[in-house]
């Protein structure tokens, strides 16, 4: 069974996109949890899960709404791309520490949507919201056989 981990803060505009996607997928019956993006907590969250999808916001300098996809079991993640990096031990650090310790799940995909605004507020920018909607549809179809 697949586990979705939505990362971010719904009160920081586009930073909430990961949480938004996780909630939509949960409403469709997927197992989904929300996390702040602190890396050690992620390792804890996916413990025992076979297939994991992490959804986060990105600040990689691309156009707002651009979707970045990483197969974390095959690719070493770039640092400083993912939005939620609590105490600088964030998503990328959590995944790389888990890789060193042999604690990555057998399948781990990371989707990060490029954000534009990270101020105080619960509204996402239109391009980010649209990309989030498309990602929900895509993930529902990708995970159909895994549920």
């Amino acid at each position: 069974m697949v586990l979705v981990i939505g990362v971010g803060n719904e009160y920081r505009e586009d930073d909430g996109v990961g949480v938004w996607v996780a909630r939509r997928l949960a409403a469709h019956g997927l197992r989904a949890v929300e996390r702040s993006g602190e890396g050690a907590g992620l390792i804890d969250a996916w413990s025992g899960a076979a297939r994991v999808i992490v959804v986060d916001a990105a600040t990689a300098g691309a156009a707002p709404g651009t979707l970045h996809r990483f197969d974390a079991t095959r690719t070493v993640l770039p640092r400083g791309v993912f939005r939620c990096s609590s105490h600088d031990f964030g998503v990328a650090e959590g995944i790389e520490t888990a890789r060193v310790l042999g604690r990555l799940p057998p399948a781990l995909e990371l989707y990060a949507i490029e954000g534009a605004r990270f101020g105080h507020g619960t509204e996402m920018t239109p391009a980010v919201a649209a990309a989030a909607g498309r990602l929900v549809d895509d993930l529902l179809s990708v995970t159909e056989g895994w549920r």
Partner: protein
Amino acid sequence: MSALETAAASISPNPSPPRIIKVDALARVEGEGALYVRVRDRQVQDIKFRIYEPPRFFEGLLKGRPFSDAPDITARICGICPIAYLTGASQAMEMALGVTLPPGPLHDLRRMVYCGEWIQSHVLHAYMLHAPDFLGMADAIEIARAHPGVVERGLRMKQLGNRLLEVIGGRACHPVNLKVGGFYRAPTVAEIRALIAPLERAVEDALETIRLFASFDFPNYEDDYTFVALKHPEVYAIEEGRIVNNRGLDLELAEFERHYGEDHVAHSTALQGVLYGDHGPAYLVGPLARYALSYDQLTPLCHQAAREAGMAPVERNPFRSLLVRGIETLYACEEALRLAKGYEEPDRPAVPVTPRAGRGFGCTEAPRGICYHRYDLDDEGRILSARIMSPTAQNQKIIEADLKGVVQRNLDLDDEALKWRCEQTIRNYDPCISCSTHVLTLTVDRD
């Protein structure tokens, strides 16, 4: 969640006098901040510890809202220590509404979930963020390669802290089960008992942690700090107590603002805490202060572990705050274990509260130090005014003072080494910049 954007530290070469070292975004701290240091004729002339996260205006956001909103809204100030905000705001509202949590399970659950936050926060900071400084490594990933067992132990302890938050708080991130008057649902005895075995292991892990940290070399640096912390006559103060310092000031919460306040400085978007009078303005909150003021309230096992680690009852070297976090983690594990063993389900998950006009104060020991709340309510329990003083805001002046002292004594270090030492100095305080803008780019300017 705060936004910490990793940006490479940039160091200007020695152009002509003065010499400037600059760090535009501090690593391994929570939030966004910068440091600027200027040195001329081997004298530190200027230190600015600059916070550039936008101010959060939480106090303004609370006005007009019902009293019951304050815990959850203020908890969003920080992703790392939500329990501090949930508990401090709840306490203040309870005082304003004239209720108290009776001794027994509700009181114990509040303390136990707070122990979970201490374990989670201290272990994350000490293992993942601060320990690399003492091991000469860039980050926890390097430690994991060299010493996987060490990082595994840290992860195991942190996971236990998360479990305490999940079982009592409803979830590990932004707990949802705490409210004014207690909890929405009290955990069952079976749920709490299931924590006993992992807590027993965590006590052993905490002892191993202290032994590991005691083997580190700590830079020499001491100061005659004004320590400020909560103090309770019987237990190591976490979620309640009087606000005391080591200069003889012993205050009820309602007296705090007569002696302590906040200054705005041009170089920071966060207010800086000040102590009025002869022993101010800078003062220190957090592990060193708590340990110095409440050493007697620690357990025999904590005293033994501290002695074996070569610690004195008062530690004035801020770099040794790492050791104190180890002792406090041990204490939190022991205390949560004690409370879990004695837990019985309460008759009801919360004491009833009725809205009324009033003023209330709350203060708890967040992992980084005291977090103070004051609220005024109208007849219907709506918030008329709010004031919150976060621990990192209170520590800003002492962090600047430490930086000045540390740079002055380490002028012979090259720029790169000095920059690292400065960042390490800031990490001594586990600063939570998100909370204080209510921190870091480093610039050292020297000739």
